[in-house]
């Protein structure tokens, strides 16, 4: 029975958990007025720091396997950005995660969980196109980075070693990169991003590579007419995340119950001032084309703040 649970556990997080860090954290690397779920091409001032904190609740529970699997991830994600120059910014993303997986096997309900520091992601972003006119800007910026194995990847419980996707860290060093574009006016902002993460092997397990296409529209709902000075803006936010993940590999063999494609729609709100931003949004999966018996996502809730200092 134990082996059965462990085996199913390994497969469980195939589609979703396998890309947890990239899925949940790397996408939110920017700390500027920006999308809630991914990056932006807006600048970080030279020799200045910005900070972003987000709390994420990620729930999956629609189980096609009949094992009544439920998976929850709580994460507190801290992002620190630094402007090396006005064109080059570097970011560090450190998550603290609390993961749990409940599963019923042979009539017994089991919980496997862990918590701790996750994998640290570091990346740099360089602005290659900047077109500024009064009250609006258009920018394109590629970015490259790496996710380092700083999280614990060898946790055990009474059933033995936790499945790779329940571990706080992946154990692997995973490069990623992409391109982000931003068009911002005084009334609205549009962002689009394409990115790819290459997962490498660790502990005889390799998560599937992840490709993402993201888009965001932020529209100023209030104040309706601009006041003089620097007024606060309330933005209505609407985003989409199209995420495809390849199948995981375990001991060199592809896991047929992992990977697939998910499309999220993300309604949200942002209140933006000169010094800080508060924001929140819900990622709702509207299309889930997953492989085999991969566990389907219910929703992801994000809320947080950003701070200029």
């Amino acid at each position, binding site marked *: 029975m134990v082996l059965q649970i462990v085996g199913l556990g390994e497969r469980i997080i195939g589609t979703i958990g396998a890309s947890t860090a990239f899925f949940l954290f790397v996408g939110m690397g920017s700390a500027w007025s920006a999308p809630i779920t991914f990056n932006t091409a807006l600048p970080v001032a030279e020799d*200045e720091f910005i900070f972003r904190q987000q709390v994420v609740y990620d729930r999956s529970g629609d189980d096609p396997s009949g094992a009544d699997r439920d998976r929850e991830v709580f994460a507190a994600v801290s992002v620190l950005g630094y402007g090396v120059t006005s064109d080059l910014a570097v970011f560090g993303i450190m998550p603290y995660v609390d993961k749990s997986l409940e599963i019923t096997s042979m009539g017994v309900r089991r919980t496997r969980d862990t918590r701790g520091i996750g994998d640290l992601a570091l990346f740099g972003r360089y602005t290659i196109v900047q077109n*500024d006119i009064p009250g609006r800007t258009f920018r394109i910026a590629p970015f490259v980075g790496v996710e380092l194995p700083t999280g614990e990847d060898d946790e055990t419980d009474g059933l033995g070693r936790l499945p790779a996707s329940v571990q706080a860290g992946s154990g692997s060093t995973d490069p990623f990169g992409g391109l982000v574009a931003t068009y911002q006016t*005084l009334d609205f*902002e549009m962002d689009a991003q394409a990115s790819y993460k290459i997962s490498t092997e660790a502990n005889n397990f390799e998560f599937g590579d992840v490709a993402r296409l993201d888009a965001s529209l932020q529209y100023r709902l209030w104040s309706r007419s*601009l006041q003089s*000075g*620097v007024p606060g803006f309330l933005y209505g936010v609407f985003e989409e995340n199209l995420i495809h993940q390849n199948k995981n590999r375990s001991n060199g063999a592809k896991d047929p119950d992992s990977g697939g494609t998910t499309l999220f729609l993300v309604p949200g709100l942002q209140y*933006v001032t000169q010094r800080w931003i508060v924001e929140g949004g819900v990622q709702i999966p509207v299309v889930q084309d997953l492989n085999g018996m991969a566990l389907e996502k219910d929703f992801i809730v994000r809320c947080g703040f950003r701070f200029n200092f």
Partner: protein
Amino acid sequence: MSYHLQPASVMKTLGSILFILFLGSAAAGAQEAKPVYKVYVDGLSCPFCTYGIEKKFSKVEGVEKIDIDLKTGTTLITMAAGKTLDEKTARETVKAAGFTLRDFEQVQVGPEDKGKE
């Protein structure tokens, strides 16, 4: 003992007071006049972004006050008495904040500039 105020005397006294007040205010005005520059910034389009402009200008020597108007994309820079801001410094500061300087003008001159006129 009684005092009788003569109209001519009252007018003379009032005139002296007003003259002294005028001289005082003129002298104070001359002391308070500080150079003010208007910096036109392109690409500035959200409140959060303006902080970079404010922070970078606050590190320029002699800058005393920074007033940003997001709607017009302009920033008024008030310098301390005796300090000036040149266009090259303004351009570099705006660039360091991640934006583009479109135009630069002095909208109020300081006493040292008046002497050059």
